[in-house]
């Protein structure tokens, strides 16, 4: 790779980060707005999460007495891991500035880092709610992470590489593979995982503070001001990251395989359109869903783990 290409690749990674950071709050707003309209409410508008974030960033963060550095560091770790993922996952282009960073296992590990940081922060506050939220989150994550790994691994088998950029480029090169059983099963498993990991219905309800059901909200109860803004921004970025990763793995059309400006522009537009479409579909589905009892959640996740495992098996015997 020549020096000029490296500069372009770094610029492309910067564009990806900018798109995800700017777009994620609007995605959350869009999903809330769709949900509100479907329920017959006027809704707060697509820009409301952005306004909330701007307000929170200007406020001082208060920290509970007795909390340690874990509590302070968690929002930073969450946000940093989300920004890192936004740079390395092939959203807009499959050409990476530094090779091998977008490896499947590295990406999932960094994704887990944010989850673990928040769960530790929930424990660090020493409150009952923080502990409940952390324990629930870890219960869910224990089944979610292997499912993500298996689902993407099923796609990586036919490409022969665990690099996400190679997987996306491979699917672009042979579009017929999108309809293979392995990829369909992996898509179902991945959809369930996105819902669980991003804390959406029916696993977690992002709009309530009911102690019987809350998972994410229970862990962030003690955060305020700047810290809360960082946690919320990181949470909406994670949803955008997971949706973006999902659409690019299973429907990668529009992703640039070169660094030509026009291809990059098309990549950005296609990414926004695809993620918005999937987000709206998710919001519409949520309206018709009730939250699962917490004890039924492992059943759903075991089901998605099975789907992912079947996808891996199918990628071997139904090549």
């Amino acid at each position: 790779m020549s020096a000029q290409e490296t500069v372009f690749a770094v610029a492309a990674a910067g564009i990806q980060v900018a798109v995800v950071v700017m777009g994620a709050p609007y995605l959350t707003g869009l999903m809330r707005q769709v949900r509100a309209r479907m329920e017959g409410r006027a809704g707060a508008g697509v820009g409301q999460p952005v306004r909330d974030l701007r307000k929170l960033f200007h406020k001082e963060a208060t920290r509970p007495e007795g909390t340690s550095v874990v509590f302070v560091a968690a929002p930073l770790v969450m946000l940093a891991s989300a920004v890192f993922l936004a740079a390395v996952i092939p959203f807009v282009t499959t050409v990476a500035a530094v090779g091998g960073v977008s490896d499947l296992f590295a990406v999932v590990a960094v994704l887990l880092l944010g989850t673990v940081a928040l769960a530790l922060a929930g424990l660090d506050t020493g409150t009952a709610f923080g502990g409940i939220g952390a324990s629930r989150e870890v219960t869910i994550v224990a089944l979610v992470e292997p499912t993500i790994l298996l689902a993407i691994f099923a796609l990586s088998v036919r490409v022969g590489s665990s690099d996400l950029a190679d997987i996306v480029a491979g699917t672009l090169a042979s579009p017929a593979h999108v309809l293979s059983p392995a990829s369909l099963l992996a898509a179902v498993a991945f959809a369930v995982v996105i819902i669980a990991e991003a804390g959406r219905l029916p696993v977690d309800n992002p709009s309530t503070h009911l102690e019987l059901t809350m998972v994410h909200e229970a862990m962030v109860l003690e955060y305020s001001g700047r810290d809360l803004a960082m946690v919320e921004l990181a949470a909406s970025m994670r949803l955008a990251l997971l949706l973006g990763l999902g659409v690019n793995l299973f429907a990668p059309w529009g992703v640039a395989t070169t660094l030509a400006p026009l291809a990059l522009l098309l990549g950005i537009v296609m990414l926004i359109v695809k993620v918005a479409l999937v987000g709206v579909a998710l919001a519409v589905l949520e309206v018709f869903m009730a939250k699962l009892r917490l004890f039924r959640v492992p059943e759903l996740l075991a089901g998605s783990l099975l789907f992912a495992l079947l996808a891996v098996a199918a990628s071997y015997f139904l090549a």
Partner: protein
Amino acid sequence: MSAAVSTQLLDVISGAILLTAVLTLWRRDLAAIIRLLAIQGVLIAGLALLLGINEHNTELYLAALGVLILKAIVLPTILRRVLADSGEVRETAPLVNVTSSLLAAAGLTLLAYVLSGPLVALAPSAATRALPVGIAVVLLGFFMLVTRRRALSQVIGFLLLDNGITTTAFLATSGVPLVVELGVSLDVLLVVLVLQIVAARMRMAFGSTDLDGLSGLRD
């Protein structure tokens, strides 16, 4: 039809057959399970039709028609009637809970893959490479037979087993001769009819079709 397209269709159909088999283990709602069984019947008929088109074999067209009528229409209708009579809409207490069943299903699928390895090696082709699907459906049917309590669930497990055997036959040898196929189909139909009568008698005697009620002696 080009070879690549037909191979892909074959893979998608086989994958869908396996998926319906797994979903029958997941769902508790008996009406939904019967619906899945009907879908599986359509898929197996589609498999036979696809193999018939590939090999220009009229007998396979007839077999596809027979499978469609029996597995997608007649048997689900009978099961629906049993369900309506019994008033038990859910499989309430399977011996193994659903989460463990799903994990067991994952294990059984891998077992089927290991078991069919030597068979596939005998004559590798697109159809025989999908052979693990048929064997996995057989194993899942067995699993359902031994872990479910309601008579209707057990009939469904038996039908799943039969679907697995049919799928295996189609994938491995492009179907058994039509006469044998007809005989087996009639057998299955009779078994289901007999089980329907047995289930009705059980309900009259015990008030439910929980098979655990059969373990004690009565006057």
